[in-house]
């Protein structure tokens, strides 16, 4: 059973021993020997465990999943030496993996902060010498390489079941007479902040607050600057292959940048912009094959689950082939991303964004126009285009038309994300929701086609491998199944498009984004 507990921060200049001495003057205490504890806190890059109120702690050769503030242990396993990151599948089957896998999904956990603490346990006793409150003074230091940063000392109070009154008395003494202040921020957050990391994980979200009257060039720079940050943030993890989500987030930021370059092209002078647009297009191209293979492998188990019972293993040669290809493609991608060309592109783009508001020659004719005017017009225009394209789609329309519609859907989604802060959430949120539903259907339609196409293209290669004939037969089953799923997505299109292009929705778009009909 768990008793009450609380963290208090020690004011500057108050040491652990001074706290123990002051307490000893007020209540019977027994001070135990101070000891040092070293813990390394692990999390995903985007802080999924932190968001779930959990801490994954490596200490003494164990990896423990615990409550982030009380450190009550939920599950644990032995930590192998020299491990730098763990995917869900790297954990041994058991309670820790069961608990952690749905939280981290495809992300890896890796160390985010190392903390060495001197801890002084002080127990408060009753009149027969029984422990009735446990206190622990902690003097933590954040460690990164040779760097040592002393963090604010803290005092942990933990009650003992059945001795609640003693807890209240000691709590009152510490927060009243001794003036300590309670905190809910765990020591690992202090360490991450002190070491310059992202408390709660790094976000790839835009989180922009624009003003409708703002100049378009300034608004564009704000959005593009944040997107460049996201690209730079995800580049190291992409190069090190920490997990597949780094490349995903990097590519989304590149695609968003390209969408904005395209949609706000009149804000920039044509010439420098053309070179950057080419550069970003190339960035998208060199990262494409690796991402495609990442997706194939992430979805492989789900795909293989479509085979008849007992035949799941038949496609093992296919997985091996995809993994081998991924190694080759990844190597090429890393080479391209580490090239002077990519570095130059990102540095020049950064310098361009810095200079744009000051450099008249880099500005286009719409640079000074209020962003509210341009954004609304662009959103309404893309929306109208989608309504027109979608309305022309029927059962006999070629697949390409649905793919084109999906591309426009992405463009609209990005515009809504960039400029959400300019419009009422009550309009933007349902619009994004209906768009998302439509995009899900279109995405499934296209993905199944791409997957089936990939399987067909690998046929000859698979057939030549050992066990290839069996794999080929299994792949035939999968291709048929993908075809069925694609056909199902197509039948769902009409309903999701009808919701997206409903009359009421069209009216709302025209009213909100204030456009010429």
């Amino acid at each position: 059973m768990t008793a009450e507990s609380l963290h208090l921060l020690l004011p500057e200049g108050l040491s652990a021993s001074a706290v123990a001495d002051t307490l000893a003057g007020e209540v019977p205490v027994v001070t135990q020997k101070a000891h040092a504890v070293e813990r390394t806190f692990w999390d995903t890059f985007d802080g999924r465990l932190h968001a779930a109120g959990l801490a994954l702690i490596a200490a003494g050769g164990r990896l423990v999943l615990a409550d982030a503030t009380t450190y009550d242990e939920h599950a644990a396993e032995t930590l192998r030496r020299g491990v730098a990151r763990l995917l869900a599948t790297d954990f041994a089957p058991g309670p820790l993996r069961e608990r952690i896998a749905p939280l981290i999904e495809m992300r890896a956990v890796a160390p985010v902060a190392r903390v060495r603490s001197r801890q002084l346990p002080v127990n408060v006793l009753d009149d027969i010498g029984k422990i009735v409150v446990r206190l622990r003074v902690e003097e933590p230091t954040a460690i990164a390489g040779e760097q040592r940063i002393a963090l604010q000392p803290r005092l942990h109070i933990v009650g003992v079941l059945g001795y609640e009154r003693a807890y209240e008395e000691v709590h009152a003494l510490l927060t009243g007479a001794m003036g300590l202040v309670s905190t809910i921020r765990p020591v690992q957050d202090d360490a991450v902040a002190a070491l310059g990391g992202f408390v709660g994980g790094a976000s790839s979200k835009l989180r922009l607050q624009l003003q409708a009257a703002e100049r378009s060039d300034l608004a564009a720079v704000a959005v593009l600057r944040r997107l460049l940050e996201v690209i730079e943030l995800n580049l190291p993890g992409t190069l090190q292959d920490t997990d597949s989500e780094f490349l995903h987030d990097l590519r989304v930021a590149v695609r968003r940048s390209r969408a904005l370059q395209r949609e706000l092209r009149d804000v920039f002078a044509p010439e420098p912009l053309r070179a950057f647009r080419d550069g970003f297009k190339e960035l998208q191209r060199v990262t494409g094959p690796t991402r495609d293979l990442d997706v194939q492998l992430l979805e492989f188990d789900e795909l293989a689950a479509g085979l008849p019972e007992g035949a799941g293993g038949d496609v093992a040669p296919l997985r091996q082939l995809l993994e081998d290809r991924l190694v080759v493609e990844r190597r090429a991608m890393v080479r391209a991303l580490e090239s002077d060309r990519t570095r130059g592109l990102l540095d020049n783009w950064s310098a361009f964004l810095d200079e744009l508001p000051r450099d008249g020659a880099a500005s286009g004719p719409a640079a000074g126009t209020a962003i509210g005017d341009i954004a609304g017009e662009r959103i309404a225009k893309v929306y109208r285009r989608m309504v027109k394209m979608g309305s022309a789609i029927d059962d006999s329309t070629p697949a390409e038309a649905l793919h084109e519609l999906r591309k426009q859907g992405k463009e609209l989604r990005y515009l809504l994300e960039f400029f959400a802060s300019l419009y009422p959430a009550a309009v933007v949120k349902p619009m994004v929701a209906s768009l998302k539903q439509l995009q899900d259907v279109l995405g499934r339609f296209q993905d199944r086609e791409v997957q089936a196409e990939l399987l067909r293209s690998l046929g000859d290669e698979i057939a030549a491998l050992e066990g290839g004939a069996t794999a080929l037969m299994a792949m035939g089953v999968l291709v048929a199944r993908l075809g069925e799923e694609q056909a199902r997505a197509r039948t769902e299109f009409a309903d999701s498009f009808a919701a997206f292009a409903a009359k009421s929705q069209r009216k709302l778009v025209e009213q909100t984004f204030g456009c010429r009909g």
Partner: protein
Amino acid sequence: MPRVVALYNIKGGVGKTSAAVNLAWLAAAGGARVLLWDLDPQGAATYLLRIKPKVKGGARKLVGGKSDVSALLKGTDHERLDLLPGDFSYRNMDLELGDVKRPTKGLARVLTPLGRNYDYVLLDCPPAISLASESIFGAADVLLVPLIPSPLSLRTYDQLRRFIAEEVSKPPQILAFFSMVDGRKRMHHEVIAELSTKDAGLLAAAIPAASDVERMALERRVLAQFAPRSRAGKAYEALWSELAERL
């Protein structure tokens, strides 16, 4: 669900309480979350852990399902070991159980709401064989029986095993260990040698008759706190590691 181990013997004064508190402490020290329930109205285990032998509402409310059992728990000096204290009203446990439906499940019902919070529950049981004992057999996964190496003690142990085999519908596993062993007595050696060949449930670890064990009542602490390296302290450690393997 936790594994429930009842320290039980029909006879008194065989070292049940000493074993219960020392084993509970060692289990907690090994990382497990442990609850010790002092079922003896004398409250000796409660006393040893420096806790007041008082349960609000007494045995009647507890087995009658009228108490919030989690509010009755007391933390001990080991942060992973909690105690459901002894209470003098437990002397009426038979009567109270007689008043509830399915009395042999009465004690198990008290433990049910605490289930997920603990890895082990140890029951320090009063001597005698009664309705309360049958309820203990219904709650326990393992009966751990301390035996003094004497012919009369073995006879009682035989009676117990027969009773459980014949009368208990879902009998707990029975394990035993020798307690209060005096190495100078030839009879102790003979009895131990004899039972060792006959009983697969007999654990190899044996607890010596030692003044350190008696001193526990003076110190009001378990051996791991004041004499962990003593002969008796090591014997309890060996007993716990052997028992843990069987659980």
